[in-house]
Structure formats: C-alpha cells, structure tokens
C-alpha cells in the first residue's frame, strides 16, 4: 500500500489537511472571542441594510471591532461590485 502510494506520487497526508483546516477555523474563532455579544446580529442587520441598496455578496462585507484603552473603533468594509 505504502509502495503504491509512493509510486502514484504521495497522496496528501490527512493529518496535514486536518491541521490546515484547524488553523483557519481556530484563527476565526479567536478573532470573535473578545467581541461583544451583539456583533453577529449587528453584522447581519448592517448587511441587510446595505443589500437594500446595493447587490453585494455575504462575504463582501467585513466588520471588525478594534479596542484601544479609551475608545473602540468599529470598522466596516464593503466591497461594492463594479457598476
């Protein structure tokens, strides 16, 4: 079996696939870790409002909240389609 794999050109080990997938999902989870509970809702509603005027995809909107010592900045990035 191993020899066959070798001759066919090694298939990708499943463990390294698992690692890559985990690194992405864990990074995503961590970025959401410290955000306030209302963020997902806020994100959804903002998207709805924008979509009322422009046709954008779900992933064309990016919201992040950066906190400094004395203030927070809510950053909203929308990639608008070319008209």
């Amino acid at each position, binding site marked *: 079996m191993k020899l066959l794999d070798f001759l066919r050109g090694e298939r990708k*080990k*499943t*463990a*390294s696939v*698992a*690692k890559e*997938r*985990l*690194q992405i*999902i*864990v990074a995503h*989870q*961590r970025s959401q*870790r*410290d955000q306030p509970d209302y963020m997902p809702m806020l994100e959804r509603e903002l998207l709805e409002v924008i979509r009322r005027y422009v046709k954008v995809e779900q992933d064309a909107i990016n919201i992040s909240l950066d906190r400094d010592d004395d203030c927070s900045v809510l950053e909203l990035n929308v990639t608008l389609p070319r008209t």
Partner: protein
Amino acid sequence: MAKIIVVTSGKGGVGKTTSAAAIATGLALRGKKTVVIDFDVGLRNLDLIMGCERRVVYDLVNVIQGEAGLNQALIRDKRVDNLHILPASQTRDKDALTSDGVEKILDTLTKDFDYIICDSPAGIERGAQLAMYFADAAVVVTNPEVSSVRDSDRILGLLASKTRRAERNQDAVKEHLLITRYNPSRVDDGDMLNLDDIQEILAIDLLGLIPESEAVLRASNQGIPVTHDAKSDAGQAYTDTVSRLLGEDVPLRFHEFQKKGLLSRMFGGGRR
C-alpha cells in the same frame, strides 16, 4: 487552601471523567488530600469510573439544597486514603446547580483538602461553566481529532473570560493541555494530528499525553481508575501527568511509534 482544577474539554467522549478519576487518584497516591466532584448533573458517571456507584447516598444537589450535609455526601475511596468523591445528582433538573451553592461547597472543601478536581460535563452550557467558574487551573482534555481540537479552543476562550479569576482581574486560570487517545502508529502514518501540531494550534502547555490504550476500558469495566494499573502505558502516562501537575519535570513517554521487531511480531507484544 486547596487548588481547584477543572477537567474540561467542550466535546464529549474525549476522556474527561477517565482523566478526572485518574488524576485525582494519582494525586491521592502522592499523599495529597484530594476530592473529585462530578458536575454532570443528570448524567453522572464519575461514580462508576471510581467504582463507588453502589455507595452513593447523597449527592451534590442534595448538599446544595440543604437535604444533606457535605460529610454525608462525600464518599471515601476504598483503595486510596486521602481521596473522596462527591457524586452528581442523577435525576434532578440542571437548574438545581446554583453558583452560590457550588461556591459554598468549594469554600468548605478548600479548608480540608489540598486539591479539588471538578469533572466538567460536555458542552459549554451552565454545568460546564459552573465547573470551571471557580477554578485556579484547567486541564483541557483533547483528542487528536479536528472537532475535539476546535472545541478545546472554544473552552480556552471561556476559561479566559467566564471564570471568577477573569471577572476579578486576577491571574488567569492556568491552562494545561492533556492529549488523550493518542495513537503513535497512526501519527506515524500521517493520518492522525501529532502532538506538536495540536500544541501549535492551541498554544498552551502540554501537561501530559495518554496513549490510546486497552487498559482504559479494562479500568472502567472494573471501576478502578487506570492510575492503579501501574503496568499499563495509560496508567504510567497518568502518573507522569500527575507528577507534572505537582511541578516535577518528567520526560514525555508513549508518543513515539515503536516499530515491532521480528520476535515480538511472531510472539505478540507484551500486555499493553
């Protein structure tokens, strides 16, 4: 003052109760006065793993609701001095577990014990949050498998925000990684996450590594925590884990694949 350690994971079936029982037993064998508490209200199992299921009279919820004293509910372990078990309730609803009630019990226990081990239920609901809330340290039990690693990361997030230490801005809960059901042969084949990968993803200190072992099922069948099986790989791995918990520097074992020699292949390996 006892040190309160929660054994938690998020995902079910990864070996929380096995680990809580094995670590508590190991600590008691090292002469530490230890109590292990089952927080899984409704689905108690620690009593079975510890082999004291027929001696349960009162439980955690009875104590919280004032129907029994703490000393009536505590079960003394048959095998090791210094070890007590506080079982979870089997029948009642989960709301019976209150934060104030748990705090009172822990405050009392902390005077008489060196270590309080809290066996968390799976999930991130109330029971799991209560089990971790008062902890000084956490043992995050993780299998080398994607859903377990992801859930462990979620639990790490909760440990950093939803605990008494976090809310009071005290030193953070000390997080320890315990990898269980590790199969060096499958890691060698490239079909199982290796321990460096898991550590890299979760970014916490490795407390121990328990190999996938037939000894674990043998232990739970009999209700004897696997730490007592000193000849087994898993038993020794838990003993090492306990030593590290006590601050000792113990080299890692059972993480490398031993290719079987011709002789052991012909005659079968020793008992694992």
